[in-house]
């Protein structure tokens, strides 16, 4: 125990005496939170919408007003040819075309079922997804409001509400992903680099000629990073709460518990990487590839996992961040309890054990 304590204390000295690592540890999470929160705004507004109105009723005019009076949609750049929806999209004058077939007003008045048409320019899939979401929301709320008095259908009022993130604010999606990203980077990247540094400079070898076991060295070196990762996680949550109004509905204790599990899995990844490489440079590239890329692209942080091609979908199952993004969103945005997140927790523990086993085997082979 005393040796582990001294190794951990030495590691803290290393961190404190190297201003660069201090910068990475404290400034990077803060910087990235602001960057993601402010600079990358996924809230898409002023989508240019063309309307082709064949109905020309009071109801259809009200519907068009409802669309244009929202902040999401605006009128097309140029007056559009009323006939050809495809030509409108091709010209780029509008991102989407709403087609109101004749009979809309009639259907609304008589309470019949009616289908409106919407053509969406799919070449920018972010905008396309936004148009779908926004217009569906608009139709469901506005169309019902537009019902003439007395036509309110009995008890079966269709009420929809976009749950958890009613305004679809980006910060609420980004912050959980950002926590997952920062924690894996601190835990896996920094530990793999610091272990590789001891190998590269020969201090690992010197230390192993003393009566110290590799396990003691690893545990001692890891401990400071567990605390740094937790501190960074807390820092991001505080900034998210204060600056970006991201809610924290669930239990802080549960969050801490799951964060520790996730940090454990990330550290296992870092140790695994350091068991495969000899220099800091290689460790850094390896760790960046193994943490940053998959944690951003395949975790559901930015791109929805369910829309991925089968291969990437399969790969996402071995990315720890995939589970942790779900966990944080569950705890922070939905106030989910432990029972709802058991699968994710077990998956992380499983991943951690697998990576630890491979790393341990790798290390034994080297000594033997």
């Amino acid at each position: 125990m005393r040796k582990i304590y001294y190794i951990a204390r030495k590691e803290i000295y290393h961190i404190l005496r190297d201003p660069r690592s201090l910068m990475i540890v404290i400034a990077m999470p803060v910087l990235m939170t602001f960057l993601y929160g402010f600079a990358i705004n996924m809230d898409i507004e002023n989508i240019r919408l063309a309307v082709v109105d064949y109905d020309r009723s009071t109801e259809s005019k009200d519907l068009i007003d409802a669309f244009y009076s929202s902040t999401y949609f605006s009128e097309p750049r140029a007056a559009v040819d009323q006939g050809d929806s495809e030509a409108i999209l091709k010209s780029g004058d509008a991102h989407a075309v709403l087609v109101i077939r004749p009979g809309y007003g009639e259907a609304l008045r008589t309470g019949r079922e009616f289908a409106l048409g919407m053509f969406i320019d799919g070449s920018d899939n972010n905008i396309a997804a936004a148009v779908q979401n926004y217009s569906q929301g608009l139709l469901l709320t506005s169309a019902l409001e537009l019902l003439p008095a007395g036509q309110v259908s009995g008890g079966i009022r269709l009420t929809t509400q976009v749950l958890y993130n009613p305004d679809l604010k980006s910060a609420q999606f980004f912050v959980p992903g950002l926590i997952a990203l920062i924690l894996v980077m601190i835990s896996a990247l920094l530990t793999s680099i610091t272990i590789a540094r001891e190998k590269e400079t020969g201090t690992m070898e010197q230390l192993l000629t003393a009566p110290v076991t590799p396990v003691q060295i690893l545990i001692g070196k890891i401990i400071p990073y567990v605390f740094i990762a937790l501190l960074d996680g807390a820092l991001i949550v505080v900034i998210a709460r204060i600056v970006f109004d991201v809610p924290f509905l669930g239990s802080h204790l549960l969050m801490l518990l799951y964060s520790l599990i996730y940090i454990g899995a990330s550290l296992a990844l870092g140790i695994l990487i350091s068991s495969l490489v000899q220099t800091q440079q290689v460790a850094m590239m390896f760790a960046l590839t193994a943490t940053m890329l998959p944690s951003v692209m395949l975790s559901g942080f930015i791109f929805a996992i369910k829309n991925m091609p089968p291969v990437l979908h399969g790969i996402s199952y071995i990315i720890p961040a995939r589970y942790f993004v779900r966990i944080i969103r569950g705890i922070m945005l939905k106030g989910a309890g432990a029972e709802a997140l058991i699968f994710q927790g077990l998956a992380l523990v499983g991943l951690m054990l697998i990576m630890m086993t491979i790393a341990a085997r790798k290390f034994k082979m080297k000594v033997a």
Partner: protein
Amino acid sequence: MSESAVTIDRLSRHFGQFKAVDDISLTVEQGETFGFLGANGAGKTTTIRMLTGLLLPTSGVGTVAGYDVFTESEQIKRSIGYMSQKFSLYPDLSGRDNMRFYGAAYDLDSARITRRIGELSERLGLAEFLDRPSGALPTGWRQRLALGVALLHEPRILFLDEPTSGVDPVFRRRFWEVLYELAAEGVTVFVTTHYMDEAEYCDRISIMHRGRIVELGRPFDIVRQHGQANLEETFVHLISAEESRNA
């Protein structure tokens, strides 16, 4: 328990097909200063790594301080001090902090660590350099500091892998004076070097070539046996003879 500090009998270490150390045997007595010579890549460092518990041999028998290199590396580590050819202390920590850290690694209590730091800094003339970051020290001082760390737990056997490479002659001389003092106190010194004048200071030497020991004995005897003027000539003569035999 054998009386010898190091015994090696038919020890080998293979890396795949490559025989880094090929069937070597030698014995080093307690208190002896033993020079372990050979060209680069001859297998010296591999041998030292096996004797210090960093690497398991492929086959053969070896004991260090009476402990088996296969099964008792923990006891071996407590009995030996090791200094590698690369400066391998923490450059961002001061000499004193490096020593404190290694003291803890060797399970010394803090009173003993403080006492040893005092003794060693006096013996090695380190006092004024002890509180600077060790990475900022000139090479000679760094090597002395590394020797201080290796001696912290008062080991009976010292393994030095090219301890004086890149150090100026005055520092080398002073370094060897310390080694002599240690030998006089009964510490066994097992040292590799490329400097033939240093090898001549040793009680006995071995010369390694391609994983095998090609010569073993007192420096003076070896020189005379081969009819050469000095150890340097003998070394070159031996290695080129081996090279042409293998060609």
